[in-house]
């Protein structure tokens, strides 16, 4: 039952991402990331034994806890890269604002 739920979530996520890309509301690396997440969800729902196999390999006795740990790690990693991207954006905005002020001054003096 759980597997079917995850399969539905994965499928729904993929469709949503494809829809957003189509409408131009999500682009490039973001779309790729989310599609990867959806694909992993679909694969794990079809082959749940994959997780058991991996847990056994890593010495984790309770497989679902491995899923949790991996999922939370990925979320934290994603948030970290998001903040890094925001920092880059902030820097660009600041420098553009400064440049704009200088250009405006140049134009005003020409008139």
């Amino acid at each position, binding site marked *: 039952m759980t597997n079917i739920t995850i399969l539905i979530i994965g499928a729904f996520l993929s469709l949503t991402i494809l829809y957003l890309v189509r409408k131009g509301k999500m682009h490039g690396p973001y779309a790729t990331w989310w599609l990867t997440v959806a694909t992993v969800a679909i694969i794990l729902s079809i082959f749940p034994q994959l997780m058991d196999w991996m847990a056994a390999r890593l010495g984790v006795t309770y497989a679902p806890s491995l899923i949790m740990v991996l999922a939370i790690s990925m979320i934290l990693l994603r948030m970290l890269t998001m903040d890094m991207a925001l*920092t880059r954006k*902030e*820097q660009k*905005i*600041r*420098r553009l*604002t*400064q*440049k*704009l*002020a*200088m250009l*405006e*001054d140049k134009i005003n003096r020409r008139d």
Partner: protein
Amino acid sequence: MKALIVIPAFNEAENLRELLPVLRETVHCDVLVIDDLSQDDTAVVVAEHGIRCLSLSNQLGAWGATQTGIRYAQLHGYDTVITMDADGQHLPLEVEALFKTFSSAAADVVIGTFPSRLSRLKKMAWWFFKSLTHIKIEDLTSGFRLYNHKAIEVLSARPASMLDYQDVGVLLLLLKSGLNIVEVPVKMNQRNDGKSRVFSSWLVVLKYMVHTTTLCIANIGAKQAK
């Protein structure tokens, strides 16, 4: 030597009305005011005095505005920048003192300080930041500074755009670039009106302290270029 006086201003129309005429009389170099999205007629007052004013379309804060002036100076071939506050705290008469120290000492940056203005709270904060870094400057926040062409180069570059306050972060960046900072005691006025931006409310102070502490810790052991 081509020098530019950079004055960041946010809602400082009244203070600039007093400061600019005095500045024109006492100092004979170009003046540039950066209007940091003021709601009053700061830009109008500056224009009335025949002084150049750059208007920011996004609020960047005191350091962002100052950096605009420094980038302007770099673009237009100025080799010295003097920054001062718009609130009349820094006296135009003392600009001469900065120049004097600059030409006598082999300094890249001259900071005009007025140590007795520091409250006990500020002194404690400074002591804390100085113990975290290798900064040996008395007055960390003084915005009354002279930068030479090397400092202009460093401060107009991209890394400097990520700083949020013009004190510790800027000083660390300058020291990291191997620049020599010298202090000179100057006279300062009490603030005409309005209070210190940084030390205005507890929440702002807390934010500033946490932010600056993080910056200090992140810079521990950062290599000092020779």
